[in-house]
């Protein structure tokens, strides 16, 4: 019996959207105020959905404390209160929320002690969010 278990996490980080391949003017045209030189920050909300059989002994797809621990060690300690542009994953990749979403998916997908990672959703603000089901 397959079911899904989801959890939301809050993460605060800074970033600057700037593509090295583009000129100054092109960067400003593409990213607007997100291209301002000193960066800015967001309170991101990460929503993680896992899927799998419901364990008969526990009634759970995954124990949320185990999911919390994976999130803490693989994602929160890496990105929370950090500058995303300085992370190795974003050296050659603009830390848009699309790319953050894929990065989080890649950091989590092989680490879950039960169930499978269905998707990761990242809410950058209350009014925009991104969702992906692979790291590619």
């Amino acid at each position: 019996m397959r079911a899904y278990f989801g959890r939301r996490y809050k993460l605060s980080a800074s970033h600057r959207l700037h593509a090295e391949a583009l000129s100054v003017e092109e960067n400003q045209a593409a990213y607007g105020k997100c291209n301002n030189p000193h960066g800015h920050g967001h309170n991101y909300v990460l929503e993680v959905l896992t899927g799998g059989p419901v364990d008969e002994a526990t009634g759970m797809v995954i124990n949320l404390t185990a999911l919390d621990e994976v999130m803490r060690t693989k994602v929160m300690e890496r990105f929370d209160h950090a500058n995303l542009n300085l992370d190795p994953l974003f050296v050659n990749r603009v830390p848009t929320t699309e790319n953050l979403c894929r990065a989080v998916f890649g950091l989590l997908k092989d680490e879950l002690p039960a169930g499978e990672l269905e998707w990761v959703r990242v809410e950058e603000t209350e009014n925009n969010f991104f969702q992906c089901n692979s790291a590619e």
Partner: protein
Amino acid sequence: MIELTRRATFSSSHFYWNESWSAEKNEQVFGKCANRNGHGHNYTLEVTVAGEPDPVTGFVVDLKWLKDVMEREVLAAFDHRHLNLEVPEFAKAIPTTENIAIATWTRLEPAVTAARGARLSRVRVYETPEIFAEYRGEA
């Protein structure tokens, strides 16, 4: 095809306990949720049905009808109740959020299928704003 979702809330108490385990193992796996005196949540239920809008009414289903089905089949049994002690599904199954989603689906699916052209697509149960489980039926 259109998906239509209706939300409802209910407040219940529960605890997590596997009778075939020792007290120590229950506490190790379930943490503070294993407290036999129970605790409670304000749950939010999201029920999604899918179908084509009726050419005359423009409705996939009548929302008032769906509300009544949810109240009769689910909320009347769960709201302001102790799930372990008062809801038959949880005499054996542990009332985790996953199992509440499955029980909600099982309670709603016959009524939705029998009465209207739409089908039940998804049941999502939020235990807190940060924790939810979802069931989409047998694949």
